[in-house]
């Protein structure tokens, strides 16, 4: 799966996992902030995103502090997933 496909998949998964029933994937821009002024996610949503990474990509966040950077946008999430997958493949 290339980066663009992963970004599209992530948008669909975020909408499903976080019950954003009023959103469509095209409403979420790749680099929009996920929290506060962007999608308006909150701290519980952050925990759900951690679950999503574990459930769908088998990635466990080692340090919760990293979340702020990883979950800045869908782009940063995709980059982190690709980086982790590349790391585990080597």
């Amino acid at each position, binding site marked *: 799966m290339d980066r663009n496909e992963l970004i599209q998949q992530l948008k669909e998964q975020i909408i499903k996992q*976080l*019950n*954003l*029933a*009023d959103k469509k994937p095209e409403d979420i821009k790749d680099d929009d902030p996920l929290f506060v002024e962007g999608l*308006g996610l909150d701290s*519980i*949503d952050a*925990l*759900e995103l951690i*679950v999503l990474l*574990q*459930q769908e990509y088998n990635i466990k966040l080692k340090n919760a502090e990293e979340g702020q950077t990883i979950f800045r946008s869908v782009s940063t999430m995709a980059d982190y997933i690709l980086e982790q997958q590349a790391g585990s493949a080597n």
Partner: protein
Amino acid sequence: MPEESSVHITSTALIRNNKVWEGETLLFEGDGQGMDFLHSLYENLDINYPKFFKMDALCKSGTAAAHVLLKNFEKEQYKPEEVGIVLSNKNGSIEADINYYESSKTFPSPSLFVYTLPNIVIGEISIRYGFKGENAFFVSEKFNAHWMYFYVNNLMQAHPIKACICGWVDVVDEEYDACLFLVEQKSENGINFTAGNLDILYNRA
């Protein structure tokens, strides 16, 4: 200390048997079941509160009933600390408890966990409208109008509560039963706030 006659039930909202009532007026009748009913209710009542979709069924039910109850409520005439909420039900947060338990067999869901207390519905209503007054949630076999009257009346006497949302919000097996009352000290309109009137209004449908 307010006299009994100075306190009135100024609005009622009822969600029962797939129907939504504001006082005597039928606002909506749905043909779907469970979440389908709640989501069609959301569209039809123009609730326009995206957080609704994240809530468990109990909070959706309470939020929808509060939306109907407070349609004409002029909350600006009260300070946030002057509006209380007292709710009750039979089944606590059983649906959310079961859903969370099921999720915990694989990946426990934080967003399900946060709804595993019945009083969260009070929090959701408070957040939406900015209420900060006293609140309480009671679990009892059936709606106890005398206890509700006693407790709310006491809040209005002993605390700076001038308006109170009270009533019953219950969900079990995708059956919704929400009956809310808005009780106000400032208003001369409405029905006298008594246990008897609460009982009559609760049992009307």
